[in-house]
């Protein structure tokens, strides 16, 4: 009976909570990546602005790490990915505004995921405590280190 319960709890931790946790962490990492992309972009645009670069040469990756030179005659108009495959043409200042809004959104998403991760971790810990009580083990002996 008790064994059954313990087994059920452990299964819940292993089959439900842990995968959830892994998934949440992966999601958060994705958002982190996005955040980095936009912060890089912001820095680059600010750089262009500061140096008032209106045309530039760059290398384009054609794939398989093969590069070819590309010429950008006018950098004042930039197309930004706004999601769902849409690209919007912005001027520098418009782009910076958009990026700021986007960054705010992303950081709130990150916060959300962080909270979610914390709550999953708390649940895991609680179930483990429950198992400990069921088995009547002394406190702190079963201190599972999950992450």
């Amino acid at each position: 009976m008790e064994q059954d319960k313990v087994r059920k709890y452990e299964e819940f931790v292993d089959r439900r909570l842990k995968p959830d946790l892994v998934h949440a962490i992966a999601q958060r990492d994705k958002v982190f990546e996005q955040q980095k992309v936009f912060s890089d972009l912001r820095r680059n645009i600010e750089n262009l602005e500061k140096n008032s670069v209106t045309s530039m040469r760059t290398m384009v990756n054609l794939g398989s790490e093969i590069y070819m030179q590309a010429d950008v005659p006018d950098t004042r108009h930039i197309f930004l990915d706004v999601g769902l495959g849409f690209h919007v043409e912005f001027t520098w200042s418009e782009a910076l505004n958009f990026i700021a809004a986007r960054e705010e959104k992303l950081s709130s998403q990150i916060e959300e995921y962080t909270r979610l991760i914390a709550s999953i971790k708390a649940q895991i810990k609680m179930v483990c405590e429950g198992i400990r009580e069921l088995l009547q083990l002394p406190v702190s002996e079963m201190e599972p280190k999950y992450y």
Partner: protein
Amino acid sequence: MEKKGTVTQLSSIYPAEETQKASRRVQDAIAEREQQLNQLKAFIDDNTSIMNLVQKLPDETHHNIMVPFGKAAFFPGRLIHTNELTVLLGEGYYAERTSKQTAEILKRRGKALEAQVESLKAIMQDLKAEASFFDVTADESAEGLVEIREDYVEEASGTLPAAGHTKSENTPFVEVGDKKGAYEDEEYIRLLARMAELEKEEEEAAKGDVSNENEQIQNEPNSTSGQITTDEEVGSLSVEASEMPAVSKEVSSHGDYPALNNSMMNTSLEQPREKKEVQAPPTANKTAFTGSIVERAHDIRTNMPEQQIGTRSSKPVSRFKMQRK
């Protein structure tokens, strides 16, 4: 009849469950390889498409494109210097190549990828064979197949593979004896015929019908003893003819007998002859049979055909042994 072998339930050695587990593991490995293969194929596709692109680009002096700026932004722009490509060679080294040269590089990369695909396919084939083997074993053990294991017995082991030869060789053997005119006994011929019959039976019963084999072996003594009692010379000749090849070809199966044979030789043949004969190579077996070699020298013409015929025949050995008793 004595018990000659053991019977083991196949499922006790390879439980169906375990075998299935093994099979599943191999299946997993196959799936993994399959993934690798798909990945490689994707690489190959990428490679060919980029090769087409690289070959097409120099057709124009420039191409209008969206130049990526970071991961989320683009500038409208154009490709220039379309015949100058910078190719990553690996380890952070880049080389500036023309379109043609780049195409060559890509072709070589494609070949390397093909080779990888080939080796991966070979590995997968091996794994599939393994998996099917496991499956078959699992099925067999589930069906309750048994494994019959029999100890390696000297006469039995000799006769089994050589059955075909001995059968056909026995008749000529008798004929040679007849030509010599040294021996003619109806009973002996009858017994030989019976032996041949039994051998045929044994052959038909094929692998490991123990009872048949035993019968046959028990029959042999009669024929040989009859032969030997009626005619000493033929007996010794037959011994010689058969022993010679036996020594050379079936060392392993007669390893136990040198001493016995030797002692017999001493009784049936004169000692001095044995001694004057050149000693055979130092193997226990061969030294034991020096006596028989003497005999051949003594009567070489008549024996020549017999030796050739008797090659690989192990039957006469047992006959010989029986005679000693």
